[in-house]
């Protein structure tokens, strides 16, 4: 190792490790930039994936809960009442449980997979279902009344 080269090295790096330190530095730089970009785009990226701005943030939370327990009646309460009921209360176990799971030593969730902007689709489907059910009920009511 000639003296001039040794002099150009960063403080604390000897010639023997110069190459290794150079590559570590590059990888560290990549990690730093990637980590920061990833962290700052996570929230907006997820919101857009789920259906914002068609759905508000609260509606996204709401649809996520409906998927999690496969239950149209699950609701995202904002704010969640202090000491309020467990969000999964009655949905995971019990006679009216809605959550889909294969229970076992390693449980397997069976909820719906959420693709790009699927929460908007799920909501529209549900609204349609509810409208149809309502129309059906009215029809029965009217038929019964006449």
């Amino acid at each position, binding site marked *: 190792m000639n003296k001039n080269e040794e002099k150009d090295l960063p403080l604390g790096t*000897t010639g*023997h*490790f110069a190459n*290794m330190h150079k590559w570590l530095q590059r990888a560290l730089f990549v990690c730093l930039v990637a980590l920061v970009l990833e962290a700052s785009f996570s929230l907006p990226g997820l919101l857009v994936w789920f259906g914002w701005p068609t759905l508000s943030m609260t509606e996204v939370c709401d649809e996520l809960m409906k998927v999690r327990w496969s239950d149209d009646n699950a609701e995202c309460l904002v704010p969640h009442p202090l000491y309020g009921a467990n969000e999964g209360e009655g949905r995971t176990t019990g006679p009216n449980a809605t959550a889909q799971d294969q229970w076992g030593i390693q449980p397997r969730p069976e909820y719906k997979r959420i693709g790009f902007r699927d929460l908007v689709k799920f909501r529209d489907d549900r609204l349609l279902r509810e409208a149809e059910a309502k129309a059906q009920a009215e029809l029965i009511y009217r038929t019964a009344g006449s």
Partner: protein
Amino acid sequence: MSKNEISEQDRRRKKALIVFQVLLYSYLLGLFLFQLHLYSLSDW
């Protein structure tokens, strides 16, 4: 000379660190591949 001793130690240290890196990254890769294997079995 003492300079030779140091570089001998450095050589061994460098070798150990390279082995350490190779082991760790191959462990990670192995686990990742194993998870992909599970993925192929169980239709997640």
